[in-house]
């Protein structure tokens, strides 16, 4: 493929749109999380501001922006300020390569998956910096936990994604979706196992309960963001929800056939078809997020060593075997 000079204007516009999308997405997700958790716990959740409390998160955002940023006296100020930005920007950049539709994709990179993974790995750096710079023991604990957890979970994550890449033979996200068409990868046994492993590791990567050890509220008060207030905390919050949408977007495009319906490939042209495709993609992604939220409000938190045990003793062996089996299958049948 010939290297084209990127359309700077398009990318700038897309980035702005993406930032706006990320903000709305987080606002909606916070609202969804609060509503889902509330109904699971048999209470109404926010219902005061706006219809069904929809504007509650907007108001909360305003409140966060109005709050004073407190920097602890012994904190490393520059790093302290850098960490929230670092947790917020990479997922947005990663989202630029996600194929929401056939056309609605800012930049179709040939190494799309790699690009996303390398950006997602920055998340752990942000947490490490936050924990270190806070000069707080709880934060440090959170940071250390986060590093161990994320590095361990990167392996099964990569292995499960590798299965999909191996199966379809490309790293390009758009082509991955097209390769599946209506027959989603998750319908194959290898795809199913890989999807489950990916989903679990994805939750761990985004520090969602039951793997929310870095911020384990009952143990470390708030973990790595103990000392953050106002928008510093807000950016971590945004980063977490952006990571969630990123993780489920990858799952959707690699395992759940992207914007295709089950056993139906949508190849229509035109704006309407594109809109339908985007909606289908988002529906799948948000369903996965809903499951994540649902799990968060059901399960207790795992312990640190159990988390690593699960990774090394279950997820990695399973994903390795799965990858090998898929490779053999391709060689024997598909090849």
């Amino acid at each position, binding site marked *: 493929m010939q290297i084209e000079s990127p359309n700077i204007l398009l990318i700038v516009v897309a980035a702005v749109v993406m930032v706006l999308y990320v903000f709305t997405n987080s606002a909606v997700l916070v609202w969804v999380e609060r509503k889902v*958790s509330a109904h*699971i*716990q*048999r*209470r109404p959740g926010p219902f005061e501001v706006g219809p069904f409390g929809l504007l509650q998160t907007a108001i909360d955002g305003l409140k966060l922006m109005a709050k004073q940023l407190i920097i602890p006296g012994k904190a490393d100020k520059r790093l302290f300020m850098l960490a929230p930005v670092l947790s917020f920007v990479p997922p947005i950049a990663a989202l630029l390569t996600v194929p929401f539709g056939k056309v609605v994709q800012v930049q179709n990179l040939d190494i799309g998956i790699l690009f996303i993974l390398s950006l997602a790995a920055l998340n752990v750096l942000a947490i490490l910096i936050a924990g270190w710079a806070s000069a707080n*023991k*709880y934060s440090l*604990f959170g940071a*250390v*936990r986060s590093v161990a957890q994320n590095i361990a979970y990167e392996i099964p994550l990569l292995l499960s994604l590798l299965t999909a890449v191996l199966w379809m033979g490309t790293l390009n996200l758009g082509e991955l979706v097209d390769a599946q068409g209506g027959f989603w990868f998750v319908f194959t046994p290898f795809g199913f196992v890989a999807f489950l492993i990916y989903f679990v590791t994805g939750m761990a990567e985004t520090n969602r*309960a*039951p793997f*929310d050890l870095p911020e*384990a*509220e*009952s*143990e470390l*008060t708030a973990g790595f963001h103990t000392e953050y207030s106002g928008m510093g905390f807000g950016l971590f919050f945004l980063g977490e929800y952006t990571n969630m949408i990123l993780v489920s977007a990858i799952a959707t495009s690699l395992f759940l056939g992207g914007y295709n319906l089950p056993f139906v490939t949508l190849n229509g042209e035109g704006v309407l078809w594109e809109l339908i495709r985007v909606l289908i993609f988002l529906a799948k992604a948000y369903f996965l997020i809903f499951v994540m939220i649902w799990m968060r*409000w*059901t*399960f*207790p*938190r*795992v*312990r*640190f*060593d*159990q988390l690593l045990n699960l990774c090394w003793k279950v997820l990695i062996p399973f994903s390795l075997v799965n990858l090998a089996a898929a490779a053999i299958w391709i060689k024997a049948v598909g090849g």
Partner: protein
Amino acid sequence: MIQKPDPTQETLVLNMGPQHPSTHGVLRVVLHCDGEYVLDAEPVIGYGHRMHELIGEVRDHRGFYANVGRMDYGGALSFGHGHILAVERMLPDLEVPERAEYLRVITTELNRVASHLLWFGAFLLDLGAFTPILYSFDDREAILDLLEHVTGARLTFSYMRVGGVCADVDKDWCDGVLAFVKRMRDRIPMYHKLVSGNIIFRKRVEDVGLITRDMALKYGCTGPVIRGSGIPYDVRRSEPYSIYPELDFDIPTSERCDCMGRYDVRWAEIEQSLRIIEQAIAKLPEGPVMAEKVPKVIKAKGEVYQAVEAARGSLGYYIACDGSTSPYRMKIRVPSYSNLSILKELTRGILLSDLVAVMGSFDLVIPEIDR
């Protein structure tokens, strides 16, 4: 020259508390950590000490019974029960009507169920599950509604009186209690489905915080902690008081000795309490709820020790009287105090998360320790 500390020998001192989500109050635990491992955990108590013992020595017997409920907000009625039984022991002429004793037991057992439900929610909250507490509070609210109907309060019930109880119940209330017992029995399987069987939960509590039989005796642990170590010591059976000898119930124990054992014991206790409530409602005799001749001024001499089984273990009131209207010395032996003192030995070399689980399994109520 200042010697440089050896980084391999350095430990991290972590102050867990006095404000911390899982210390359930103003308890501070000074941790010496090696990474995630706790080398030493020293509880520091006394942040909320109100010197109830001294108040008890200043006030007369009647003036003190509003205070006892303040010590243990979870199971206030057993604290009241113990105090009243101790005072009544000093008044041998006083005959407490049977109906009053039954009401005391019914309300106390209801309160015990409420207390265990509170513990259940808080324990799961410590382990990071946010939903069970709201389900258990749903049931707890039903109990508090019932108790409010009879005692007039929802948390610090001052229900027990010297010579009886302060309010009578009617038929409707008894039906309400029976309806609650049925409802609770229907709900218990749900709790077990949601939590007890959950693999994450089991992994978190199994083989964590092992208290052997010997340790439990040496440290004076009581209540579900000692029963979770396989010793069937329950004051209601070992040292029967009130109408407990007439009731048929078991003392659940567990040989597991770990947090799971304590968890199992508490759930079994809820079921036994429901049994007690059911029997007591069936047997509830007619009659007055207050003794006829209660001395207006209680002047006693001598010393008594009265133990009752509170929700968290054996609660003892030691009252020494010199013949005046107020006690000369009042000592309140609270169960959580002894239960917590084992923490230092128990948590040597365990993970930080396990420490939280162990403290949660003790069902600590800090105002009771800092009485």
